């Protein structure tokens, strides 16, 4: 590595930005994959892999991908919840990796809710 110039700081920051946003727990949007036993049995791992790949390929930095447990609607798994900042969370059900990719492109990146896969607004309550 050659000597840094002041403007190189911004480049390095950009390179590590995704990791830092992850650690600070802040992002423009959050995608939660429900990974209860029911979710995993109906293919949540494949959904997670597909979303990880989307983030990697598109080089998305400000979207956090995380897991949560069973949302209580086991028959409609695999499910994800999409939380775009300052908007109510949206739950999507009966997913496949392709549907998840579509939701990622439309809802997470362009802000357009994919109504045909959506179950409802809101999130289950945790005490």
């Amino acid at each position, binding site marked *: 590595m050659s000597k*840094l110039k*002041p403007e190189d700081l911004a480049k390095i920051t950009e390179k590590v930005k995704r990791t830092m*946003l992850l*650690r600070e727990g802040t992002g423009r949007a959050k995608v939660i*994959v429900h990974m209860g036993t029911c979710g995993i049995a109906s293919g949540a791992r494949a959904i997670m892999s597909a979303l990880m790949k989307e983030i990697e390929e598109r080089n998305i930095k400000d979207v956090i991908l995380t897991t949560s447990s069973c949302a209580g609607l086991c028959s409609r798994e695999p499910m994800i919840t999409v939380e775009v900042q300052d908007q109510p969370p949206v739950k999507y059900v009966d997913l496949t990796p392709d549907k998840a990719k579509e939701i990622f492109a439309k809802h997470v990146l362009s802000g357009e809710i994919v109504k045909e896969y959506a179950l409802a607004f809101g999130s289950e309550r945790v005490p």
Partner: protein
Amino acid sequence: MKVYRTNVMLCTCTMCVSVGALAIRKRLEEEIKKQNLEDEIQVILTGSSWLCTRGPTLIVQPDDVVYQFLKEEDIPHLVEEHLLKGRPVKSLMYVHPETLYPIEKLHDVPFYRDQRLIALWNRGIIDPDQIDEYIARDGYKALAKVLKDMTPAEVVQEIADAGLRGRGGAGFPTGRKWEFCRSNPNTPKYLICNADEGDPGAFMDRSIIEADPHSLIEGMLIAAYAIGASKGYVYIRIEYPLAIKRLISATAQAREYGLLGEDIFGSGFDFDIEIFRGAGAFVCGEETSLIHSIEGRPAEPAQKPPFPVQRGVFGKPTVINNVETLTNLPRIINFGAEWFAAIGTEKSKGTKVFSLAGNINNAGLVEVPMGITLRRIVYDIGGGIPNGKEFKAVQTGGPSGGVIPKSLLDLPVDYERLQEAGAIMGSGGLIVMDEDSCMVDIAKYFIEFTKDESCGRCTSCREGLAAMHEILTNICEGRGKEGDIELLEELGEATKEASLCGLGKTAPNPVLSAVRHFRNEYVAHIRDKKCPAKVCKALIEYEVDKDKCTGCTLCARNCPSQAITGGKKKPHSIDRTKCIKCGVCIDVCKFDAILVTTGESP
């Protein structure tokens, strides 16, 4: 760059490593692999991140969930439940001391919530061995700003306007110290970072360097530019191997990026850092002794003036700043003097890092705004006193400081208020004592420490402390006599007056403040041969409460000196001539049947 969805931030500070953090790391990585999560989850090793006595600890991000007291066998469950299935494991979480309800999020833990991080800005968020992560948290941005847009005089003015004062203990205004050095025509000039942290129970400097070494390097670069130094030393004790290792790795990375060396950022400014390992003598924390140590001379203090800014290391102008003072600098430059000066009290600005230790629920490293009350530190952040005991006093400033009694719990913590109370801010050790602490015994402990660490150059310090130690020992062992308290006060004042350096000038403080705030306890020891806290062995006796004793024989079987006798199911008794007052019987008795009395011996 590889994408992960979760980072597991495992604390690998000295304390967590000593309780098995590295074994936890190995197990974590094995289990993550077993669950095929290695492409999704990354384990990051951080410096001290939160409650130091609850290690090993880890924080799962972005979920902000914190786990404590981890054992290797907890890891498979933790990985499967939380990392795979997204169900945080409640049984491994911090439990609120009053509601007894587990707290999931790190930032909801009261210990964490009430802190304000400036010096500890990056704690637990970055991997200390990755310079890029430091840069991504605005790292070296302040350096670029001062080199590009500010003259050295403007940097000095900015720090003076911020009101930053030395965090090593004395609280001298940093901007003023720098100006003396900057305006000195003599060259070359030197910058020394004092990381010779020696107070018992203090671990601020070590934790800062272990968690965020680049903050210190950037702070040193800013300071060096302001005073016109091109060479800097970090004087750090050899007892801090992990901090030294991380600092060496950080300086190497900074050199590779051209952030240390010649012509930094193409500005023409040169600076490099040498790490100087001290052997661990307490007196080396005193600046003139420290300078002698770097020069290869015996570590003894010198007369001041001349001050180091006039004649320092190798006879050249030298600024010596503490680790915490220096790590504050990047934030002050980035956010501005006005922002910094808005935090704290009229004369003490910004925050202070304390290492909270002793009889307290949440021992650990805390950073709080100046002016916060001791009550808030002890009860809100510290979580109060364990085992339902009463708060008695807090010792600030280690062996150079003093005790602050319960009546002063609402004292706002700043340099002036602590001084008025007979204590000092010191480097930030804060030892909490409960009702079972004897104030004569504590004072004796600190005097014993400074007596041993005195370099012996000044008669007042060498002999004065030895004499005070002898008097305190006599008082603790029941040989105290009338006039001892007055003699202690006289000796203490004389030692303070006649000693050359900070060690001797402050060493009597623990005794003087204890005598001032807890005089009755001293009188009880001397006049009534009583130790109210029941600590001093010569003044207490053990006996069996005949009504409570069930004759289970547990104490008799465990007594190391066979002092307890009595038949099965019959009340036991203790032979005072054999009893060594070790307290084992109290620990093993299930019926609270062992009594400790004081001042009632026949």
